[in-house]
C-alpha cells in the first residue's frame, strides 16, 4: 500500500522526504537539549494540526474548540495512571474513546440542529470553555490547582510502556506519532470515507443528493479528529507531567493547534507539518533574537503569539491556500502526479 503512495510522489519529492526523515531520525545524536525540545514542539504542532485538518481540511467542519478533546485525552490518561496505575497506552485508548464520544455528541447536536458555519465554531468554543470551568472545580483531578504526574517512575531508564523516560525517548514517540498520523491521513484520502469527506466539503447538498449520508460521515470526521487529538493530549500529559485546566482547555490552545495547518495549507497532507516546521523554530528564534528588547521593559512572553498571528494575517492575505502548494511548485515537484 505504502509502496503505491510513494510511487505517486515524484522522484525528487521522495528524495526530499527521505532526507528529511533521515535527518530527523539522526537529530538527537547531534543537537542539544533545547533544540530537541523545539523539535518536540514542532511535532506537537504538526501532529495536532494534522488531527484538526481531518475535520476542517477534509470534511470542511470548522472547530475552534479542539482543546476540549486534547484536554479530555490528557486528563483521562493522566487520571487513570495516577489513580489506578493504568498504562498510558491503555489510557490513550480510554482518552480517545472519551474524546470521540464527546465529539460525537457535539457533532450530533450541531449537525442535527443544523447549526452551520460560525455558529458551529462558537458551539465548539462554548463546550470547551464549559469543560474548562468544570475541570477547574473537579478536585479528583486537582481542580484549578493543577494535576501532577509523578516523575519518579522511570528514573535511570527509558520505560516506553510506562511513557516515563528521557526527552530523547519522547522525541521519538512524538516523531512516530507524527509519521503515523501522516500515513493514516494519506490512507484516508484515497479511501471511500475520504472521498465522501471531500465531497461534503466541496458541496454538502450535492453530496447528499448523491446518496452520501452527510450527517454520519461528518460525525465520523469529528470522532476521528477528536480521538487523534486526545492521543496527542495523553502524550503531552506524560511529557509535561502537569496539567492546569486554564492552560489545557484554553481557547488559545485551540487556536494554536490550527495555526500550523493554516500556514502550511488547509486540506493538504504536508501542510500541517510544513506549517509547524516554519512557525515553531521561527517563533523560538525570534524570542532569542529580540532578547535585547527585554532591557527596554518589553516583556517577550507574548512575542511568539504576536508573530504567529501576523503570519496568519500574511498568509490569508497573500497565499490563501497555504505555503505548501507554493513550496510544492518551488521545489519543482509539480512535474509528476498531484
Amino acid at each position, binding site marked *: 500500500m505504502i509502496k503505491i503512495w510513494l510511487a505517486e510522489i515524484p522522484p525528487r519529492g521522495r528524495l526530499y522526504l527521505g532526507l528529511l526523515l533521515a535527518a530527523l531520525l539522526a537529530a538527537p545524536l547531534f543537537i542539544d537539549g533545547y533544540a530537541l525540545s523545539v523539535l518536540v514542539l514542532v511535532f506537537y504542532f504538526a501532529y495536532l494540526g494534522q488531527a484538526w485538518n481531518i475535520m*476542517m481540511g477534509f470534511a470542511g467542519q*470548522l472547530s*475552534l474548540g479542539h482543546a476540549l478533546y486534547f484536554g479530555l485525552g490528557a486528563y483521562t490518561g493522566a487520571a487513570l495512571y495516577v489513580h489506578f496505575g493504568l498504562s498510558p497506552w491503555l489510557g490513550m485508548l480510554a482518552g480517545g474513546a472519551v474524546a470521540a464520544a464527546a465529539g460525537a455528541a457535539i457533532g450530533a*447536536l450541531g449537525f442535527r*440542529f443544523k*447549526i452551520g*458555519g*460560525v*455558529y458551529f*465554531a*462558537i*458551539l465548539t*468554543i*462554548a*463546550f470547551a*470553555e*464549559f469543560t474548562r*470551568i*468544570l475541570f*477547574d*472545580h473537579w478536585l479528583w483531578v486537582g481542580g*484549578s490547582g493543577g494535576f501532577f504526574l509523578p516523575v519518579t517512575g522511570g528514573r535511570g531508564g527509558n520505560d516506553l510502556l510506562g511513557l516515563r523516560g528521557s526527552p530523547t525517548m519522547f522525541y521519538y514517540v512524538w516523531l512516530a506519532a507524527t509519521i503515523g498520523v501522516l500515513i493514516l491521513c494519506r490512507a484516508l484520502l484515497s479511501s471511500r470515507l475520504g472521498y465522501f469527506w471531500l465531497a461534503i466539503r466541496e458541496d454538502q447538498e450535492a453530496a447528499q443528493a448523491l446518496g452520501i449520508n452527510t450527517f454520519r460521515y461528518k460525525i465520523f470526521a469529528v470522532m476521528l479528529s477528536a480521538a487523534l487529538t486526545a492521543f496527542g493530549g495523553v502524550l503531552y500529559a506524560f511529557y509535561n507531567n502537569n496539567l492546569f485546566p486554564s492552560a489545557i482547555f*484554553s*481557547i*488559545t490552545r485551540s*487556536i494554536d493547534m*490550527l*495555526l500550523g495547518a*493554516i500556514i502550511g495549507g488547509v486540506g493538504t497532507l504536508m501542510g500541517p507539518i510544513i506549517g509547524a516546521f516554519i512557525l515553531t523554530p521561527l517563533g523560538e528564534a525570534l524570542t532569542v533574537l529580540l532578547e535585547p528588547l527585554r532591557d527596554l521593559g*518589553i*516583556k*517577550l*512572553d*507574548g*512575542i*511568539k*503569539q*504576536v508573530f*504567529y*498571528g*501576523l*503570519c*496568519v*494575517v500574511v498568509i*490569508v*492575505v497573500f497565499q*490563501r491556500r497555504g505555503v505548501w502548494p507554493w513550496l510544492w511548485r518551488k521545489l519543482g515537484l509539480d512535474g509528476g502526479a498531484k
Partner: protein
Amino acid sequence: MPIEVYLNQIASGALTGLIYGLSALGLSVIFGVCKIVNFAHGEMMVIAMYAALLAFQWFGLDPLVSIPLVCALLFAAGYALQAGLINRLIDVPDHMQFILLAAIAIAMVSGCLMIFGPNAQNVQLDYAYDSYEIGPLLLDKVRVLAGIAAISVAGLLAAFFRWTWIGKAICACGDNIVGARVTGLNVKHLFALAFGLGSVCIGAAGCILLLLVDVQPFLAVEYTLLAFVVVIVGGLGSLTGALLAGVLIGVSEALAGLFIQPSLKSMFSFGLLILVLLFRPQGLVGKRA
C-alpha cells in the same frame, strides 16, 4: 438572607449587564452590517481599557471623561482594519475570515501582554466607594454611572441609525448589499464606517468597564466569549436584544455568584449559550432567518 441582599445583587448585576450589552452591541453592529464575526472583540475592548488607563495615569482623566477620546481612537482603528484589510478579503471563505480575526486577536492580546505585562491594573477614583440609597436598594455610584453611560451610548447609536442619512445607508448595506450597490452607495466605505461604529461601542464599553474591573490582557478572551454569549442569546443583529440579553447575563452571573460559587458563574453563561444555539439559534428576541 434578607430580600434586600437579592434585590441589591440583581440591581448591580443589571447595571453591569448594561455594559455587557453595550459591548455586545459592537459585535452585533459589525456582524449585522459587514457579516464579519469579530473574534478580536474582547481584545479591542482590553486595548480600549488600557487606553483609558493610560489617559488616567498620564493626564488624570476619569475613564468616563476619556470615553470620547478612546472612542475616536477605536473608531479610527476599526475603520482602518475594515478598509485596509477585511474589505480586500470579501471573497475569502467564511472560515478563513474567522481564523484571520482570531489570529489578529492573538496578536493583539499578546501585544498587550508584552507592553503592559500580566498584572492587573486599575484606576483609583475618589468616588469609588460612594453609593446611593434608593428605597431598600444600596447602589454603588460607579455602577450607576456606568449603567447611565452605557444606556446613553446605546441610545445615541440607535438614534444615529434611525435618523441620520449615513446611519440609514449603513443599515441598507446590512439588509441588502446588492440593492445598496445598485442605488449607488459606496459599500466599502459604509462597511468601514460600520466597523468603526461597532468599535466605538467597544471603546465606550471598555472605558466604562474600567470603573468596575481591573484590566489585564487575559480578560480579552473572556470578554470575546461573553459578547458572543450575549449577542447569540439576544439574537445576532438585534440592538434591543443585545441590551436585554446583556442585562439577563449580568443578573444571572450576579445571582450565580450569590447562590453558588462566583468562579462557576460563567459556566452558566456558556450553558445558556449552548442551549440557545441548539433550541433557539435566532436568539431570544431575534427573528427567524
